């Protein structure tokens, strides 16, 4: 299998605070990798370093064989235009959706292809229609974001990222800002993407989702990957004490199987 993304010895510090410590991670084509960990463990920073929303302090990112930036692993330099081109190849979905409020749903989805990829109008429209349909919101094309529910907004944000036809999708706690009853529709959309073979790197607190959808789960602690493996290994039979504690915290209050018939 080809590797879409290779992260080599990635470190990130904010001042004296070391948030990521020499992370190595490879994401193969079509796989879904879920990153879990306590808040402050560096999981969002890791995701944000992948598309250079944060500039790594050290280490290298290789996207489909292309090393981003130039230099040795210890000190890399990047040009603005190179990073912009790289980001266009990587889709990102944010906790707070960040739709463009002055544009309709359809214009939101067309914006990237139009402004960044310089697609013609017909192609922009084709992509918008296609990806809005994919997230089940074709019928909201002409609405403004403020008129949508949080779940719908997040699905539009997913369509907006997909319209760039990215090589990998990043999800940064995509359901954390949603009311509980809206979480399901977004997770469902993400699952469908995974089933379609999209390469995805996901930071989430939804362990049930991780268990169902992930090919691989990483447990991040203090800027390091403490444990990783298939969902069964990490989420059901964790080996590390920190992972067990984390899962204990998440499992303190749990429903038995609800009777939904």
């Amino acid at each position, binding site marked *: 299998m080809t590797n879409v993304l290779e992260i080599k010895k990635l470190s990130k510090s904010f001042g004296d605070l070391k948030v990521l410590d020499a992370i190595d991670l490879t994401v193969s084509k079509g796989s879904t990798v879920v990153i879990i960990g306590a808040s402050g463990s560096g999981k969002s920073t890791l995701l944000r370093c992948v*598309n250079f*929303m944060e500039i790594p302090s050290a280490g290298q990112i290789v996207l489909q064989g292309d090393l981003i930036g130039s230099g040795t692993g210890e000190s890399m330099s990047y040009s*603005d*235009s190179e990073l*912009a*081109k*790289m*980001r*266009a*190849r*990587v*889709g*990102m979905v*944010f906790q*707070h*959706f*960040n*739709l*463009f*409020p*002055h544009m309709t749903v359809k214009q939101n989805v067309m*914006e*990237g292809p139009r*402004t*960044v990829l310089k697609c013609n109008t017909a192609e922009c429209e084709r992509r918008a229609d296609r990806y809005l349909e994919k997230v089940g919101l074709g019928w909201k094309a002409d609405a*403004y*974001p*403020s*008129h949508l529910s949080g779940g719908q907004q997040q699905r539009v*944000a997913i369509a*907006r*990222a997909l319209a*760039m036809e990215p090589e990998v999708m990043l999800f940064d706690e995509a359901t954390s800002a949603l009311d509980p009853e809206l979480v399901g529709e977004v997770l469902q959309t993400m699952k469908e993407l995974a089933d379609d073979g999209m390469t995805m790197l996901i930071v989430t607190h939804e362990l049930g989702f991780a268990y169902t959808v992930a090919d691989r789960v990483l447990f991040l602690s203090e800027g390091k990957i403490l444990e990783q493996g298939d969902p069964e290994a990490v989420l059901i039979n964790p080996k590390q004490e920190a992972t067990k504690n984390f899962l204990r915290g998440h499992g303190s209050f749990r429903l038995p199987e609800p009777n939904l018939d």
Partner: protein
Amino acid sequence: MGYEWDFAIVFRDFDLLLLGLVNTLKVTGFALLFGVPLGLVLALARLYGVAIIRVPVGFVIEFLRSTPPIAQLFWFFFAMPLLLDIEIDPFEAAVITFSLQSSAFFAEVFRGGIASIDSGQWEASKALGMERNAQLRRIILPQAIKRMVPAFMERAIEVMKTTTLVGTISYADLLYEANSIAEETYRYLEVFTVAAGMYFVVIFICSMGVRHLEHYLGRTGEITTG
């Protein structure tokens, strides 16, 4: 009591007042035409320029904001021509002064508007692969300008009112014409009442127009309009 109002005299010379109004609008219009784009440039320089640009620009903005417009007007009309050995007419001096003076205020309006945009908008457009210019042009400024409309209008009205200073360098604006008519006819009450009324009508109509504009811009729902 006993003052007999006589507006007939005023209306006999009404064409002069109208001419004055046109001149007022001309100075205001040109000041806005140059002042608004210049304000945007100053704001961007102050926000995103390197230090060697940012600091002087900040100083110029503060200087223009902190000196009386009439002193600036006199400087451009009386002092600058001496310095540069050029001739300048009152209209040119007025346009230069009020363009610069208003640009400093517009710069602050732009800066506030841009700074008020949620950082998530920068992030989302950046993540799509946009570079700074595209982010500003497509995402940030369209939203910022919407929020700035009321403040813009406030400033534009302020500019129009400040242009009454041009009479001091003998530019025949509305107030200057009113003053000449009043001195000829001694009908100060009537003349200045009508002149004030004319300012009011123009500014009031503009305000109403802006209110409709705000309402129209508010249709996307992300900002609330009073």
